[in-house]
């Protein structure tokens, strides 16, 4: 049986791992290559690196990080952040990443998804969606630019469009829950997971082991991503997996 994946996420800025609460107030949480090896040993099923460097130098540093991680890890990893063109995808994938994650650039120019999928195959292309509930519009809206900019896109429709263009996976972050540790956005995750044919990674809100259980059972997520609770050792990948196994979920 296909197992539910647990994915630690490392936000990388200028070569170092940091993590914000609701996308601001960054704190340094360590060296990406060391952390990657640590999570691999703990049984992480996959890793995601989000490059949040603002500078060109930061981006170049990321390529080095990807090369080092690829030389250490025997599990898949995805790199997102600052990927705006096919040339960016080539650079990151050739440095050894297994997948790239597109966010703002895909919203601004959806054909980028198709270009990537045609060149590398859908399995390499993750589309990341930052979602926030809009009370007035009574729907989830897509945000870009690290959650700073609202768009006129609705989340479910965008997820479907991304998949039709060739996205092999959706990385869905609930901005309402991100950094709050009060649980994943179950309704949102379920709605997207049922709307698309590809795997959905739920992100934002992980605070304890029960939250992972709920997002897999009620939220119908295929994978769950978390950062702070793993980085600050509030729980470990191992503990979460042992708990989920005990609840009868398929876990590696």
């Amino acid at each position, binding site marked *: 049986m296909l197992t539910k994946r647990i994915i630690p996420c490392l936000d990388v800025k200028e070569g170092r791992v940091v993590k914000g609460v609701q996308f601001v107030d960054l704190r340094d949480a360590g060296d990406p290559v060391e952390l990657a090896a640590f999570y691999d040993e703990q049984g992480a099923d996959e890793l995601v690196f989000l490059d949040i460097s603002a500078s060109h130098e930061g981006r170049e540093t990321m390529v080095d990080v990807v090369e080092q991680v690829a*030389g250490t890890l025997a599990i898949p990893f995805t790199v997102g952040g600052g990927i705006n063109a096919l040339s960016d995808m080539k650079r990151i994938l050739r440095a050894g990443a*297994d997948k790239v994650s597109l966010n703002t650039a895909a919203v601004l120019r959806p054909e980028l998804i198709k270009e990537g999928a045609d060149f590398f195959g859908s399995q390499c292309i993750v589309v990341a969606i930052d979602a926030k509930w809009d009370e007035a519009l009574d729907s989830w809206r897509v945000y870009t630019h690290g959650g700073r900019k609202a768009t006129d896109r609705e989340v479910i429709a965008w997820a479907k469009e991304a998949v039709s263009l060739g996205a092999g996976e959706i990385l869905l972050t609930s901005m309402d829950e991100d950094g709050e540790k009060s649980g994943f956005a179950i309704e949102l995750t379920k709605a997207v997971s049922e709307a698309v044919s590809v795997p959905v990674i739920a992100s934002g809100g992980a605070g304890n082991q029960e939250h992972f259980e709920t997002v897999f059972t009620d939220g119908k997520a295929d*994978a769950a991503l978390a950062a702070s609770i793993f980085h600050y050792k509030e729980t470990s990948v191992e503990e979460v997996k042992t708990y989920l196994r005990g609840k009868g979920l398929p876990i590696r």
Partner: protein
Amino acid sequence: MIGIIDYGMGNLHSVTKALERLGHVPFVSEHAEELSKADQLILPGVGSFKDGMAELEARGLDVFVKQWAEDGKPLLGICLGMQLLFDESQENGLTKGLALLPGSVVKFQEGVAKVPHMGWNQLSFRQKTHEILKDVKEGHVYFVHSYFVQTKNDEVLVATTDYADAVVPAVVAKDSVWATQFHPEKSSGVGMSMLKNFVEQKGGVRVE
């Protein structure tokens, strides 16, 4: 010496890095003449079957790989590199493959489960004594694919997994030709052990 066949289809870096972690120094080439100097060859690859065959043919590597296998030399196909070893694929219209192994590559049934089959799935061993499974646990390995092999000859099945109501060949082998549908280089200890068994093989079936 291990040669990695470069035919423009995908991530050679991860396979190279995995072999380096095992203490080997593989070389990557798209030229049959250079590749013929290797002791063992790996045919990796991600992407579509049709493109993969076209790229092999454009470099004359289809003929070379077939001859290599017919000479009984060790070959490991990975992911698309495994599918290409079979007779044909339905992906983007029927395309002929290398026909070193019997079977067709077909798409997962729609609506049963998510496609691609992406993530860690459990192996079931069919030939516990095959050399590729030496000291390998019947654990989980990392799959990413939308098409899978259907074979009429179950003798090539070394290990399978279950997905979308189908029995999915995960490890196949016939003589010196071995292949995995999953990515051993991305499958932690289980996958790395299989890669190690390929590069350190003594040939054929292991003696218990």
